[in-house]
């Protein structure tokens, strides 16, 4: 099987998952809060006379464990759904082959 991972902006989480479900039929995702640093600038802060800025922006990392033959469609669905129209920050998607995929509750091992 394959693990498809993507970094997206948080407002797109729902849209990306819906797109994957609709376009590929795949259900199941794990979502992790992340922050990312790309080319954008942060905003200026001030506190009691000191000025400084932060360079990270909030993102989410989504993990989809999918059948090998669906991987490509999932990647494409994600890349399409993640686009926000902003100038930057929409992130990346990629996939990795994985082994030994086991469903915890049933103990069933999926074909690799």
């Amino acid at each position, binding site marked *: 099987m394959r693990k498809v991972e993507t970094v997206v902006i948080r407002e797109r989480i729902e849209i990306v998952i819906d797109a994957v479900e609709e376009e590929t039929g795949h259900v199941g995702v794990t979502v992790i809060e992340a922050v990312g640093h790309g080319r954008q600038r942060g*905003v*200026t*802060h*001030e*506190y009691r*006379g*000191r*000025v*400084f*800025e*932060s*360079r*990270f922006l909030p993102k989410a990392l989504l993990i989809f464990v999918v059948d090998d033959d669906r991987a490509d469609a999932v990647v494409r669905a994600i890349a399409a759904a993640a686009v926000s129209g902003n100038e930057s920050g929409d992130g990346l998607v990629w996939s990795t082959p994985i082994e030994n995929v086991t469903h915890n509750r049933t103990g069933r091992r999926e074909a690799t």
Partner: protein
Amino acid sequence: MTKHDLLIAASTIWVVVTAVLVMFMQAGFAFLEAGLTRMKNAGHIAGKNVLIFGLCSVLYWAVGFGIAFGDGGWFSGTAGFFPSVNELISVGQKPFDFFAEVPGAAGYLFEVVFAGVSLAIVWGAMAERAKLWVYFVFGTYFTITYSIVSHWVWSPHGWLFSLGMQDFAGSTVVHYQGALAGLAGALILGPRIGKFGHDGRANPIPGHNIPFAVLGTLILWFGWFGFNPGSTLGVDLGGFGYFAYVALITNVAAATGAVAGMLIAWLKLGKPDISMMLNGALGALVAITAASGFVAPWAAIVIGAGSGVIAVFGVIFVERIGIDDPIGAVAVHGMSGVWGTLACGLFAAPVLAHNLATGHKGLVYGGGFHQLGIQALGVVAVGIFSFSTSYGCLWVLNRVWGIRVEPTVETQGLDVHEHGMWGYPEFYIPVPGGYGTESHGHMGGLGHAHAAAKPAPVAISKEVTV
């Protein structure tokens, strides 16, 4: 030392103590409003109450107090501006002879905190999207229009007072007026980003801290024991110690409103929504404000229950017609303010109207529609004046400079954009030695002793030269 000296002493204690309780209502509004809005704006929402109370306190000394309670005509006071030491320390003297048993200074103190409450209400309906300078400009303007209306209703020269309008502690003057200005603001600002979906359906934007909202409500309830009973402005109005009765009525109404708000939310919405219970209690306090000196305990229960109904249905109604009022100020202070004002015309008990020498007994006691009519007239007149002046002012400001923050500011939050710093910095940025750094963070345990020995630079942030 005469008995009159002692009367002044006791009355001044009473008026100052109750004024101080009302002043503390600023903390109540700060926490009610901060609790019912989002984390990203928490510092701004809480902090603005200090700012506007500050502004209002100075202005009210300068001109507001004179407009409201200085000697003058039916429309406005015309004396007592920038009052001097002597005007403030003397008792029962012009231009503040309205205050017969307390020094002018006590009068100022008691009345300025009312103006502060009215102003605090305004911003509740405008929360999370107005620019900071608007607080300065509209806060100043509203302090003056507020003072004019308070002259109408409370000054012995005021035209509504002369007609016998009953508004014991300001359902109309303080609450309804504040809500009208807030409504004007909410209309001009429009709803917060994300409040209404593309299909026009409202999205819930829950506040971030219900315990804060509870604290705010309890502080307000506490402060209301200054608001209403203190409005006797002395220890003998209505009889010596009569103010205790006003306190009882206030408490019974608030209590009923809380229980009613919760039960009605339970029936109507399926859940005993805590924010609706709080709104029920506050709505009841608003309504009983006008009536607290005039009605019997059973009527306080009726009035409180009515406010519980208004809170739930009013909040839903306001949202349904597309107005975004984050804390429910229009329903709680506006609709309940009107309800309380009219309720005097319905329920004013003969003995109390007589003791207070203000207006007449209400409809249910066979007083006919006379008092109700006067109350309605007051509501209409104040409604037209306050809404139109507020709307006009905000409309002009919006036209000329724009009173709503940029979308980016609204999205990211007023705290960091308007003030430079988050309300809860450690949840948003790495703070040296704070949450989210070594040794800390959610699910985290405890770090190394050594780490402390060589502090890292400000993690994830770069300092910029001032």
